[in-house]
């Protein structure tokens, strides 16, 4: 397969991931802001969205503190919920406030696991940042695929 074929394959995977994260964030935001679910969204999707993000936040809490060349814990190496490039993107984004970011992730992890009603605006922003980073990555591959970049 030429570069174009593999880029296309990669875009396909990344766009799917970005779509899933966007959908999950939307579920949580709707609940947070008290917006009713549209008929097209099954109510049990909220539980799935919550579980997905619980796993992602737990993963980030474990791997963000590690140095770049240190191997991830076994369970994340074989089945990471986010691609390595996305973790690196988030890590870079928080180079200057890394200790604070790690603390925020840990607090968010606790709230997602225990009591969703205690979520704060800042937590929603953290979730959105992850989904937006995935969309941005998919968009970068899309631009390479279209040879716009």
């Amino acid at each position, binding site marked *: *397969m030429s570069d174009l074929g593999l880029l296309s394959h990669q875009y396909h995977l990344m766009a799917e991931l970005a779509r899933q994260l966007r959908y999950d964030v939307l579920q949580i935001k709707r609940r947070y802001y008290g917006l009713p679910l549209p008929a097209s969204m099954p109510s049990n999707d909220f539980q799935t969205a919550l579980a997905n993000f619980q796993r992602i936040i737990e993963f980030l809490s474990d791997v963000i503190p590690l140095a770049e060349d240190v191997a991830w814990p076994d369970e994340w190496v074989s089945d990471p919920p986010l691609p390595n490039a996305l973790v690196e993107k988030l890590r870079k984004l928080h180079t200057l406030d890394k200790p604070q970011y790690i603390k925020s992730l840990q607090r968010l992890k606790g709230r997602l696991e225990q009591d969703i009603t205690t979520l704060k605006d800042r937590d929603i922003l953290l979730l959105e940042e992850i989904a937006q980073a995935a*969309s941005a990555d*998919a968009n970068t591959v899309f631009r390479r695929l279209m040879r716009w970049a």
Partner: protein
Amino acid sequence: MGVNGFLAGLCVDLYGRCQRLLLYSKVVSPYPELSSFSSTIYTKLQQLKERIVDLQDSDIIRDQRFWRNAYEEYQDISSEVSLLEQFAIPVLIRYNASDHLQNRWVTLFAREIGYPQELLPIVTTTSNQYYWAKPELQLIAMPIGDVGGILGWPDLVHEMAHILLEYWPDFLAEFRPHVKQYFDKKRQSIIDLNSNENDNKWLIEARLKWGDRHEGLWQIEMAANLIATFVLGSSFGWQHVRLSINHTHGPYAPSPSDPIEDHPADQAQLDCISEMLTLMRLQDESNKLRSQWDEILNRMPVEYPQGYSLYYPSELLKGIAEVVFNSCKAHGLICFTDQPKKRQNMTILNLIDQAWHQFRISSQDYSTWEVNALKDLEYHLDDIL
């Protein structure tokens, strides 16, 4: 106009774009093989239109707190429309006799090797990026120069394999434990030997590339090569040598310390192909291929890079060849060596095999042989399809 209003306006614009593209997917073609592809594109455009309507009707497009979510949904739909516009619609508009000829031989070839009819691709001869596939559309593009050039056709078979890998997601399932086991063992030995930081970093990169998750593209690329070798025999290996000479930037790239790439190194690909030929009991062919390759390498100013075997361990190269060999059989593909001895009815398989044989015994006379062989093929296809 506020930003929400602007986004709503863009939805109207994008809807209109879908409508215009839909007209192309409804054009009736004189070529019957195009109808299934047209209807796939039609359905995809209809689904995108529905997503636009859903977004327009949604409360999030009118709510400031959800603007970013609506914006990203719009951008995603717009990208999907652009991809169809860029890669699929031109196939429909430009489809001609050259494309038709390629699709006829691909149809015949699929029958010969046990390739599922429902996964038959549509082939377009308009590529300016060598061969590529968009498996989700069952679309393969090839360069126009290869329409009259048989030697490159094994790469089309490699693209057909990518479609199989998309639709047979468990095809490589048996390989996953090999990857885990190998990298766990290697990681432990790096810890035990207290190796340097580079080894650890390279091992992490290699694991990602060999993995089956987001960044793991090497096993897919290797598997497509191996499937093509399984059905074609050594002609795929010879085409790999040809491609490496035509397109390569070095037999060992990417190696540790090179920028990481989506394709594994040409040397590793050849090693893998060679493993498959051995499994197929074509040891003699494998030896000839290796000997030609080594002779070429000996005349190139390249050195075996440090850490190369961390990226391409022979354990994984052998492991993936064995898994693909067994999976091909389990999925009903017919091995080159299991074809009837004389293969009189194996028109395309014989043609590709003979082309490479002819090229290797007399490259100077090859062009004349090829012109005649392609004329015969056209007559034959007229008779049977």
